[in-house]
């Protein structure tokens, strides 16, 4: 079981640039999704921003299913500048992988609860860290795509694009860099204060 919690309204508003398509995933019974809060927030966004389509579907973590579900919305998606995804971390990464050239942003942070973790495809993983990094990394998760879960860029261990830990695994940060390069978003790797993980209990403020 996992919980997706909405990012702050300010954070989401800042992400909604240009023509915006919103994708909600209500698929998985193993995920607690803040459906009503998301709905209210998206209504507000529609009033203040250029939201061209709100899509609510299920199991976007499955790439084939995702493709099928979005088929009838492709005109809007192709014309969009930004895709905002309200789902767990796996769903966001699947959408980002499907639309390589689009700015795909996460509107949720995903927290774990003990027990079964729902349906996930094999090539993408969400560690439910509760502080989703996907918005600064081109929709590729540094926590699960990097063996060391580094959050400030590539270590010195990659050779020919492969990870020092597993030569069959692509270096996560090289993937992130290339994706950001493609999106013309390398500035996302330039920030003033280095990122530091928060391992404390998110409920214990």
């Amino acid at each position, binding site marked *: 079981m996992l919980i997706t919690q909405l990012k702050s309204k300010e954070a989401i508003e800042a992400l909604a640039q240009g023509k915006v398509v919103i994708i909600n995933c209500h698929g998985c019974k193993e995920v607690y999704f803040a459906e009503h809060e998301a709905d209210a927030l998206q209504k507000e966004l529609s009033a203040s921003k250029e939201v061209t389509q709100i899509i609510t579907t299920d199991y976007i973590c499955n790439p084939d299913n995702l493709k099928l579900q979005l088929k009838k919305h492709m005109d809007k998606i192709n014309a969009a500048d930004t895709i905002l995804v309200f789902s767990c971390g796996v769903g966001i990464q699947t959408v980002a992988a499907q639309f390589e050239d689009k700015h795909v942003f996460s509107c949720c942070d995903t927290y774990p609860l003990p027990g079964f973790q729902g349906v996930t495809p094999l090539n993408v993983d969400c560690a439910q860290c509760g502080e989703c990094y996907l918005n600064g990394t081109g929709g590729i998760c540094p926590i699960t795509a990097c063996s060391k*879960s*580094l959050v400030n860029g590539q270590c010195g261990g990659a050779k020919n694009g492969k990870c020092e830990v597993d030569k069959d695994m692509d270096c996560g940060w090289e993937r992130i*860099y290339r994706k950001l390069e493609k999106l013309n978003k390398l500035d996302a790797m330039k920030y003033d204060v*280095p990122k*530091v993980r928060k391992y404390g209990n998110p409920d214990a403020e």
Partner: protein
Amino acid sequence: MKITELFQRDEFVITAEVGPPKGIHIDHLIDDAHKFLADRVHALNVTDNQSSVMRTGSLATCKVLKDEGLTPIFQITCRDRNRIALQSDVLSAALLGIENLLLLTGDYTTLGDNPQAKPVFDLDSVSLTHAVKRLEEGFDLAGNEVDGEPPKFAKGAVVSPCSDSVDVQLAKMEAKVKAGVEYFQTQGVYEPEKFFNFMEKAKQFGVPVQLGIIIPKNVGMCRYMNANVAGVHVPDDMIEELKADKEKTKAGDTGVEICARLIKECKDHCQGVHIMSLGWENRIPEILDLAGVAPITK
């Protein structure tokens, strides 16, 4: 002495790497340091469980070298300690009078001789640099105040100029500079052209860079590095050179000549040299003589 003071005086800064043994007898390391390095290098890097192989600690060895009148550089990796232990060890270093740090992410645990160990990586080279900078400002990473006069270090880091993804490395280098890194030592360089191109781009950061040199001992070692060591590539003609005169290579003379030539070629493009001799400390004076680098003046 902080090695940043030497860079500020425009000295060509020479450092060498020593690795603590897997055991507590370090007389040999100290003897070699006095005999071959004391007059030739400004400071000695002490590795932190290099290649994830468990050994005597870097901090303790730094203290022993300092007591011997040498200048140590305390290498710290993020592999084995969380932020509490890392910050604590940085303060301990200051307490022991150790002023030079080299801040690294660290090799992964499974590469070493205790592959079952838990990999930590709570911080990385960038956030560790930030943590040290915060300590210098009188606060820990969580914002708690540190009592009394805060410590001050020369903060170093590494970069791989010959990496096959040098643009990704440069992005990380920029993040390190922003976080407070004041000097760089590079991964081993065997391709001067790549190094020049790298330095051309790294110039913008305005931070001194020491050329990294790994003594190529034999053909097998070069092939191993080409297959397994990130950021290192020994070109074919250099491998041929090592093959050409087997006796000379076996005696170590070919490797020494190659290192001297690399230093000579790259000297004007960098601010110092860092030699990783992997046990061949005794050949370092010869390399520097051949490269035309004079003994240091104290």
